[in-house]
């Protein structure tokens, strides 16, 4: 399951939906809006998605993880809109019989989501400036 969501994620429901009698390990990753980026103090973020393709590519990534790793289930949601410091931007959850594959699949999903899903973020800085953020892969090449 992958979804672009416009309101806060229901973490209790996301977790219950993944609960499975056969699962021994459950790994989650949450991306939170942090108060700084590349030396600038951040006030809030705005996420924007190209919804049709974002949902399609996000679903493809979750399906790839299910095929690649010996896991039971996986899910991912990504927020759009204005987010304050500390708010959840992205959530990934994976269940498996053993923890090894749950960790690996969770990591795979968040890594792929960040570089392949058409979502962009604009940072609003304490200085009053704002700007669209370069992609993670581009930033690491600098």
């Amino acid at each position, binding site marked *: 399951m992958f979804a672009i969501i416009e309101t806060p994620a229901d973490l209790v429901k996301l977790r219950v939906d993944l609960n499975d009698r056969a699962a021994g390990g459950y790994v989650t990753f949450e*991306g939170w809006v942090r108060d700084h980026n590349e030396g600038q103090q951040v006030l809030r973020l705005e996420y*924007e998605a190209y919804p049709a393709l974002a949902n399609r590519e996000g679903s493809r990534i979750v399906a790839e993880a299910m095929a690649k790793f010996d896991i039971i289930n996986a899910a991912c949601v990504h927020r759009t809109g204005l987010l304050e410091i500390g708010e959840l931007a992205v959530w990934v959850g994976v269940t498996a019989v053993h923890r090894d594959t749950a960790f690996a699949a969770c990591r795979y999903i968040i890594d792929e989501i960040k570089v392949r899903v*058409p*979502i*962009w*973020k604009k940072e609003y800085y304490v200085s009053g400036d704002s700007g*669209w953020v370069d992609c993670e892969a581009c930033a690491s090449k600098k």
Partner: protein
Amino acid sequence: MKFKIEYYAQLRDEAGCSAETVESIASCPAELFSELNATHCFSLTQNQLQVAINDSFSSWTSQLNDDDLVVFMPPMAGG
């Protein structure tokens, strides 16, 4: 041919609109982007962008058809 274009993120800011419909003789996304760039003066170049046709990732040299939805995408920055 007629194409529907959607803009997101900095491209939307620079185009000044989130969508437009254009008449063009462009046969592929590369030609179409070049035309639109002449109008909007985007700060990103073609090699920094990806393109989707009808909600699927496409190559810059794919054949365009009448009524296609074409989206040029800045580098992804989710998460």
